[in-house]
């Protein structure tokens, strides 16, 4: 389960992992499944999730249960996550720039 920070650096790190052949080779050779867990919007890392729940007077058991429900159970397969991320990166206003030789 990959649950890196939800800021640009964290997302870029997961993208870098997915775009290489490391995850695919590891999944094939060890017969394991890699999932990417995304934190709810407004939370940078799991620490923020705990602090936010604790500020609402939740105890540890409730926080763990909430994390399992809101983060872990919504994790997606790494290849699906990466492709969805790539497709979401489409920006209609981004024009193609031709630089260099034609």
């Amino acid at each position: 389960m990959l649950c890196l920070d939800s800021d640009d650096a964290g997302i870029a790190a997961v993208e870098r992992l997915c775009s290489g052949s490391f995850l695919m080779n590891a999944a094939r050779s060890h017969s394991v499944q890699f999932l990417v867990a995304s934190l709810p919007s407004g939370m940078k890392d799991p620490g923020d999730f705990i602090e936010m729940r604790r500020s609402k007077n939740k105890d540890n058991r409730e926080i763990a249960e909430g994390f399992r429900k809101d983060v872990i159970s919504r994790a997606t397969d790494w290849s699906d996550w990466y492709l969805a991320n790539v497709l979401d990166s489409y920006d209609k206003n981004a024009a193609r720039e031709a630089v260099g030789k034609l």
Partner: protein
Amino acid sequence: MSSNVTTSFTLKIGSFGSVFKRVSEFLATSQGPAERTKSAVEISGKLAKIMAVDSNRTTISQAAQVQLESDLIDSASRIANAKEAIKRRAEAASEELGTNTQSLLASLSRGGTSTDGTDDIEKMSRKAFGKLAGASQIAPSAKKPYQRLENNVGQPGARPRRRIYRPSSEKKAEPSITPHFAGFEFENQSDADWLGIPRNKVGVYVHAK
């Protein structure tokens, strides 16, 4: 569509070409040919929606989607083939470098500068070289010249091995040296008898026959 992924262009992040290229690279890296084709069919549907937005339309035609799918598979396959070729070339270069380095180190350890080991036989005995280099390294260089020539047959520039014709009659027992004396009887059976030299001293004076 294919022009969007031409490498001579710098694609702006977020453009359709950039998305298409990233998807192609992902399919090329992470999946085999069969899985790649299957995934391309699913992804091309999502790309078609993006393409429709990119061209200010609500939908794109079925033919355009099929073309998109074909381009995606083609692009991913070309990237995969290029990566495979580079990988093979790197492996070949690594093996070549390893062999040369091993040969050079072996040569240097013997005090020589040659890397092919052809003059090892002249420099030291086979036994000494075998002790130094080990059995696996002595094999190619310790062969006799004709054995090396035999191994070179079939390689470019090598001289073909000449076959020596040996008639079967050569293998038969040698005939008598003096067949023309057959049937004659001589008073002196040998030259020593004729010269009057005792038989037990023949070796001292002359070798009979």
